[in-house]
C-alpha cells in the first residue's frame, strides 16, 4: 500500500490532483491511501513551497501545478 499525501490549501488544482491520482491508481490497480494535507502549518513543515505538492511514501515527488498522468503512473510504479 502506497501512502500518498496531497498538499494544498483546497484550491481547484489540489482537488484535481487528488482525483487524477485516484483515477490513475485505479486504472493500474495499485492500492494507495490518499491523504489530503490542507493545514498551512503542515504544508510548510513538509518543505513544499508550491502547491499542490505530492508526497509518495515520505518523498516529495512533485510541487506546483497539476501533475501529468504519466508522471503519476511513474510514482505509483516505482517500488
Amino acid at each position, binding site marked *: 500500500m502506497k501512502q500518498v499525501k496531497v498538499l*494544498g*490549501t483546497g*484550491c481547484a*488544482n489540489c482537488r484535481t490532483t487528488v482525483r487524477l491520482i485516484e483515477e490513475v491508481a485505479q486504472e493500474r490497480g495499485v492500492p494507495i491511501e490518499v491523504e489530503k494535507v490542507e493545514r*498551512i*502549518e503542515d*504544508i*510548510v*513543515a513538509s*518543505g*513544499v*513551497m*508550491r*502547491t499542490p505538492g505530492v508526497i509518495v511514501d515520505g518523498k516529495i515527488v512533485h510541487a*506546483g*501545478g497539476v501533475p501529468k498522468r504519466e508522471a503519476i503512473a511513474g510514482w505509483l510504479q516505482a517500488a
Partner: protein
Amino acid sequence: MTDLALSVRRWPQRQPFAFLALAAAAWWLAYRSLVPLSEAMVALLPVERESHLGSALQFFFYDTPKVLLLLTGVVFVMGMVNSYFTPERTRALLAGRAEGVGNVMAASLGIVTPFCSCSAVPLFIGFVQAGVPLGVTFSFLIAAPMVNEVALALLFALFGWKIALLYLGLGLAVAIVAGWVIGRLKMEHHLEDWVRQLRSVHPEGEAARLTWPERIDAGFQSVREIVGRVWPYILAGIAIGAGIHGYVPADFMASFMGKDAWWAVPLAVVIGVPMYSNAAGVIPVVEALLAKGAALGTVLAFMMSVIALSLPEMVILRKVLKLRLIAAFVGVVATGILIVGYVFNFVLG
C-alpha cells in the same frame, strides 16, 4: 489517434529548434496581417465604417486577435524561461543575501520565477525559514504578481513598448524600495508565533535540468494554463473597451480622471485595492479610459493597486503575518504606487 496525427503532435519535441523558428515566423506573419483582416471583416458587415458601431467593431476585431496573439507568444516564451527558475532555486539564490542587493535581486527574480498567488503563503514561509531577510522576501512577493508577463504583454499590445518598459521599471522600483523600507522597519516579531518557531532549513536549489523539448513542453503548458484561464476576461474587457471607444465622447474622462485632478491618483488607489482582478481583466478597460483622456499616471496607479494589493491576498497572508505587518505592507506599497502615479502625471506627462 492515427500515426500521422501522433507524429505531427510529437514533431516539436523531435526537432525543437526547427519548431521554434517556424512558430516564430508564423506568429510574425499573423501579427502583420491583423489590420487588413480587421478592416476586411468590418467591410463585410452591413455597417458604416465611420459610424459609432463601425468604429467599435473595428476596435474589437483588431484588438482581440492582437492581444491574444501577443499574449500567447509572450506566455509561451515565459513558460520556457520559467523552466529555468524554480522557487527553490530562487530561494537558494536569495538566502543570506544582504539587504539592498537582496531587494534588487528578489524583485528581478520575482519577474521570472513562476508564481501563483495560491502558493504565496508556503513560499513566504519557505523563504523566511531559509534565512531570506523579511524585506527581501517582500520585494519578491510584491514584484511577482505585479510585474508579470501577462501585464507586460498586454501593456505592450495596447500601448507600445515604451509604456511596457516604464511599467516594468517602476514596478520593480516599487517592489525594491517597498521591500527595503519594510526591512528597515524591523518587523520580524510581527510574524505569527508559529512561523517564528519553525525550524530553519538549509536551502537547496539545484538548477532544473531540462532538455529543450521539455522546455517547449513547459511553454505549451503555460499557454494552456494561462491563456486558457484569462481569455474570457480579455474578451469581456475588450468588448467593454470597444463600447467606450465607439460611444463615449473623447475627453469625457479628462474632467475627472485627467491630470489636473490631483485627487484622482489617491482615489484610483483606494478604489483599486479592494478590487481583485488579474492584469488581463483590467488592462483593456484601462486602454479605453486612456483613449478618452484619463491621465496615464492615474490609470497606471489604478492598475497597479488592483493587481498588487488585493483583499483576498491579505486574508491569506493574515495566517502568517500579524495585522500591523500587513498594514505596513499595504501602506508602504500603496505609497509607492501613489508616487508612481504622480511621477507619471506631473513629471513625464
